[in-house]
């Protein structure tokens, strides 16, 4: 897919809560092997943090880098599966906090872990069609992992926002994108349930890998490229293993994945996952380099984006805290504190 007008990313910003719990500590509590764990540690939102506060931090960092008047935004869209309110938009709070209201479109998007890239896909269409000069799309989650479930090791908190604007102002030029969706029930959470359910290994081959590889190959075919033509490749990262396996399937060199592979250090930030990885790549990419970003959302689908980094990246990246600083800003907590912060103790 391509837009009518040339567009790109004019600002980006991420945020990761400071608290960390080690996977080995989770394994200790549940009597599992502390070595056979999916990631080293995961981020934990503090007691006063939720998907909305994280989205606000990411939005503010995005605006710092874009250097635009918040009132020039035509949309603030938040993709998440951790909405603080079941009914009441998160996006209106974010828009109010950054001073973008009232002449704005604001809404929450939901598509499991690809809600954020779904919002980004929409933002490219919104700006690319001329309906708005700028649009902010955020992917964020404070993911829920049931105690003792395999997902508890990785369900983490964090997010990243991206402001889409005119190509001439872009720090990364949008070259094209693709969305690939089927009805595949690999992971879900019904109304009024605290934790999601998942279909074990079904989440792999017919879900994650099928959608990620198909979406990537189809976009690359449309653009006349190969996945390994890119300088950086970011995949949705529910753990360390899946994105590396996807890279192998697509013939992508391992070293192209590493700069955007953040889940080993902060876990899976769900709707924020691939977008946090994209922010990490924008922190280090040089002008002229190309970036492939692939999300995955259960239910299921993948969004794929192709970018080429411009010279504006060099100045813009220093206007807000980079991802490395958020990853390095860590305070380790034990399982009991984690259980309290995440509201896992219910009498």
């Amino acid at each position: 897919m391509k837009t009518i007008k040339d567009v790109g990313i004019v600002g980006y910003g991420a945020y990761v809560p400071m608290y960390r719990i080690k996977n080995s500590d989770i394994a200790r509590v549940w009597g599992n092997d502390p070595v056979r764990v999916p990631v080293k540690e995961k981020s934990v939102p503090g007691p006063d943090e939720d998907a909305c506060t994280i989205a606000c931090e990411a939005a503010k960092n995005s605006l710092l880098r874009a250097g635009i008047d918040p009132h020039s935004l035509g949309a603030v869209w938040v993709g998440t599966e951790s909405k603080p309110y079941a009914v009441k938009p998160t996006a209106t709070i974010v828009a109010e906090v950054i001073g973008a209201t009232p002449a704005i479109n604001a809404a929450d998007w939901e598509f499991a872990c690809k809600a954020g890239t779904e919002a980004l896909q929409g933002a490219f269409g919104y700006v690319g069609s001329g309906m708005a000069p700028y649009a902010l799309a955020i992917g964020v989650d404070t993911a829920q992992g049931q105690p003792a479930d395999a997902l508890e090791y990785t369900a983490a908190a964090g997010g990243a926002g991206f402001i889409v604007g005119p190509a001439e102002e872009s720090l990364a030029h949008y070259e094209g994108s693709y969305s690939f969706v089927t009805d595949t029930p690999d992971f879900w959470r019904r109304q009024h349930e605290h934790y999601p359910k998942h279909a074990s290994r079904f989440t792999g081959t017919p879900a994650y890998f099928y959608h990620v590889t198909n979406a990537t190959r189809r976009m690359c075919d449309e653009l006349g490229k190969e996945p390994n033509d890119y300088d950086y490749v970011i995949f949705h990262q529910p753990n360390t293993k899946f994105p590396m396996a996807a890279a192998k399937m697509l013939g992508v060199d391992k070293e192209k994945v590493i700069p955007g592979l953040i889940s080993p250090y902060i876990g899976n930030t769900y709707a924020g996952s691939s977008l946090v990885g994209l922010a990490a790549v924008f922190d280090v990419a040089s002008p002229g380099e190309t970036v492939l970003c692939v999300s995955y959302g259960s239910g299921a689908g993948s969004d794929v984006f192709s970018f080429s980094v411009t010279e504006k990246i060099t100045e813009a990246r220093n206007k807000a805290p980079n991802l490395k600083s958020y990853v390095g800003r860590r305070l380790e907590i034990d399982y009991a504190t984690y259980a309290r912060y995440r509201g896992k103790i219910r009498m």
Partner: protein
Amino acid sequence: MQDVAIVGVGCTPVGEPWDKSLREIAVDSTWNALDDAGTDEVDGLVVGNMSSGNFIDQESLGSLIADYGGLGNISAFKVEGACGSAGAAFKAGVMAVASGYHDVVCVTGVEKMTDVVGNSATKILANACDREYEAIHGVTFVGLNAMIMKRYMHDYKVTREQISTFPVNSHKNGVKNPNAMFRREISLDTVLNSPMVADPLTVMDCAPICDGAASVILTTRERAREFTDTPVFIKGCSVKVDTIGVHDRATVTSMAATKAAAKDAFAQAKMEPKDIQTAELHDAFSIMGVIGLEDLGFVAAGKGAKFAADGEIAIGGKLPCCTMGGLKARGHPVGATGVYQIVELAKNIRGDGVIDVENGIAQNIGGTGSTVSVAILGRDD
């Protein structure tokens, strides 16, 4: 009583075919066997299945498979005996032909286990033990087998390493079976160091949760050569039961039902263990394979692990076991397993398997030995 012969075999690849329903794999398997027999007509269908009602909310499998298989208004029903359902269904099919009730019978074992998530499969499988006295306390099948293995190791001073040669052998044999779920070799170290499920059983000591269907076509000696030049005859076939709970048994390191079924089957066949050339054992857990060797009379009590560790169960050994991967590597779609064993044994005997033998034995266990079938197959005398 008429002699009964297997004149067609078929199965589906064991695995996680998420895009196929139970009826699809059951019909595929049934028609594979019918095609192998060169016929499209049977007058009876016996379905082996453990728990379709719990796994996929579907019962009445006789009607379902006959209907979707286009078999018409034939006699069709399901036989259940936990993980030994298919072995019990096979016996029902043999009896139907031997008694003269039916001329040509298809026995199809089928199980679709991968449509449930979380711990549901473990809970459903626990229905095979005594719900009121065992499962109600939270015990699982792997837990029960772990206790049996611990007791066995204690009583016979046998090491875990010796017992765990069983999955190594099964995986090696599974490589050559295109229908096996796992077609890769594993080392003893891999078994010992894989994640612990229930001490001392690791993941690699345990058969996988999977889907599959297998079928055989049975007919009388009189009609067998209408269908094939290489009929395989049922020399002995028996199903016996024991107490449903392990706590009511005099010993947990031996299965009285296996011994009783083996005694019956050997008597029917007029054979002894020394006459048997290959064995398809119910190696759902490593320890089950070891105990099976002993209860079927191939080795003395306490000697099964050493027999396996010495390489005697390998192809080329004294008694090749689980020649197409066994439950561990071919896979264990519970209510289908017993027919997979018969299919593999029949192929080995009729000449299109992986070894060349004149006869063999299959043992299919339900529960922790509460329902056991033993079948002895062989070429025509």
